[in-house]
């Protein structure tokens, strides 16, 4: 039980650290952050719009207050789910803008993450089983090369080949004319629009799974219980799948949550290229338009998402592997 308590304690402590970091980042620059931001948005020469400065202050807290008071009011706003208004989508609150984009990215990232996990683990396990075979070297070298590709570039190439040259898939957006909701035309359009973005993420992400799975599997294959299983005359298939692969899978469970951060980072680039209406494109937009309230909220959401996934993976790991509960 202490294992779970400790993991939960770490989650809360990290959550606090992340929230505090999010509070500190805009304040690292000298001067009144509200004025600086408004000035930068309006251009250097434009006169300061006091209303905008006030709106900015509402988000950042009054700079004349002590840092501590700003921090408290920041936490208060956060608890009430108040992230301020977006500049790009003025006068919509940040939360509403994010809510519209939320599911697009969740679906995209989940599909990419799950498929790359399953594909990577299977390929890695098979490569380890046939260690030093041609299959092994093709998979290891191939995934190394694919993993070094810049996801922005892969997206552009896919767009060029399958979007413009062959015309198999739409080149931008999330849907065409259908009304968003649970109706078949919309779902069809959404799938065809998200195919290329998901494919781009899929190409560059499995490298970690393949190499990680291959290495732990090779380590496991050297263990005595594998030798015993073989000596007992168990079929190869059972030794590979039920013995070695099952144990080798464990470290990948914790890796799953950490990899999510990478996929979310990749989603920013992919969604920007495909003009896909998700959180990643929103973040790219927020950066470009200097929409700080939106950027703040997205950064917090992304980090908390990874944190929650991490907690879930840790808890699952504790259930799956009794040794983890006893260790430490």
């Amino acid at each position, binding site marked *: 039980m202490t294992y779970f308590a400790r993991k939960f304690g*770490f989650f809360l*402590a*990290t959550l606090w*650290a*992340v929230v505090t*970091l999010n509070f500190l*980042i*805009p304040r*690292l*620059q000298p001067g009144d952050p509200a004025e600086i931001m408004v000035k930068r948005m309006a251009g250097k020469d434009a006169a300061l719009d006091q209303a905008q400065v006030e709106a900015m202050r509402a988000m950042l807290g009054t700079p004349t207050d002590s840092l501590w008071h700003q921090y408290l009011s920041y936490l208060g706003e956060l608890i009430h789910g108040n992230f301020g208004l977006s500049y790009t989508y003025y006068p919509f609150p940040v939360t509403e803008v994010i809510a519209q984009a939320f599911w697009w990215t969740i679906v995209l990232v989940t599909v990419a993450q799950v498929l790359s996990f399953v594909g990577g683990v299977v390929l890695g396990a098979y490569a380890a089983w046939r260690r*030093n075979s041609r299959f092994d070297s093709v998979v290891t*070298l191939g995934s*190394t*090369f694919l*993993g*070094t*590709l*810049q*996801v*922005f*570039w*892969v997206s*552009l*190439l896919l*767009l*060029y080949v399958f*979007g*413009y040259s062959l015309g198999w898939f739409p*080149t931008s957006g999330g849907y065409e004319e259908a009304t968003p909701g649970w109706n078949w035309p919309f779902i069809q359009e959404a799938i065809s629009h998200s195919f290329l973005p998901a494919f781009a993420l899929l190409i560059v992400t499995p490298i970690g799974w393949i190499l990680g799975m291959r290495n732990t599997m090779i380590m496991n294959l050297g263990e005595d219980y594998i030798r015993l299983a073989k000596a007992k005359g168990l079929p190869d298939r059972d030794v590979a799948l039920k013995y070695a692969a099952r144990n080798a899978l464990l470290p990948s469970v914790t890796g799953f*949550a*950490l990899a*999510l*951060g*990478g996929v*979310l*980072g*990749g989603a*920013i*680039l992919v969604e*920007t*290229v495909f003009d896909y209406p998700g959180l990643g494109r929103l*973040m*790219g937009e*927020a*950066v*470009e338009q*200097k929409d*700080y309230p939106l*950027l703040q909220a*997205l*950064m917090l959401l*992304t*980090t908390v998402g*990874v*944190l929650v996934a*991490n907690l879930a993976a840790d808890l699952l790991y504790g259930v799956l592997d009794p040794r983890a509960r006893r260790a430490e």
Partner: protein
Amino acid sequence: MMNANTTPVPTPGEDFMAAGEAGQELAVEQVSDAETPDRWWQVIWSSRKARVGVIILAIYVLVAVFAPLIAPHDPLDGSFEPLAGPSSTNWLGTTTSGQDIASQLIYGTRISLLVGLFGGLFATVIATVIGLISGYAEGTLLDDGLSFLTNVFLVIPVFPLIITLVAYSEVRGLWLIVGVVAITSWAGAARAKRSQIITLRNRDFVTAAKFSGEGTWRIVFREIMPNMSSLVLASFVGAATGAIAAEAGLAALGLGDSRSVSWGTMLYQSNAQGAIAQGLWLWVFVPGLVLAILMTATTFINFGVDLLSNPHLREDA
């Protein structure tokens, strides 16, 4: 001191690495080999992948150093006919604003290598200092604090954090990118170093150093660290690869250094100018390709570096 038979005061470079590598082997195997162990560069060179990686990297370094001699034009000179195809003046054609793509590509090598070198270096310094101190002080409050910091940076998604930090800063220079990449991407390496020093810190040579009255700082960085130099080198190569990728991603989003040309800014420009829709595929294709080859080369080098820290891998290299 274990490596007393080699140079007493290790100088950075060959002797330093060789001493570390010899110590490493002893630490892992607990037997001393009668033969002289291979030098660290011999071990790396023995891997075919690493050999390929080193040669490719050397070519990139030459291109970066001699860029003004190799490049036919100034990368920012927009005096050519826009949208021209490949020709003898413009080997890879021109951009929408009449700049020479080949020259941009050649000069871009400099940015990627600089960011890789310094981003990797700074990240490794941070990771080494935090990892070693935290591991050496294992179980103390200091370790708890540093480990917590490491774990926090490990779970925060790196790329979103990088673009958030860059978005808030006034200047968008190369050194900003280097700094931001360094302070966001050290955590994994710090954790690896922490666990390694925990296995080393109770060895006899450390106890001997303690009894001879050496200070903690000296014990950690002069006695123990040389024994994990392969891990430090591996994390440097990994961090450099990550830094190159991060710069390209940042620049592709339009957050790069505005005064210079990098492969990432080329991708950004080509996307912003609609190169894909106009069928200008060379403009898009080449920057990403040279980037991928460079990153594959550094990853290959790390296969060789892995052989240093894990002698068991050497058989099937």
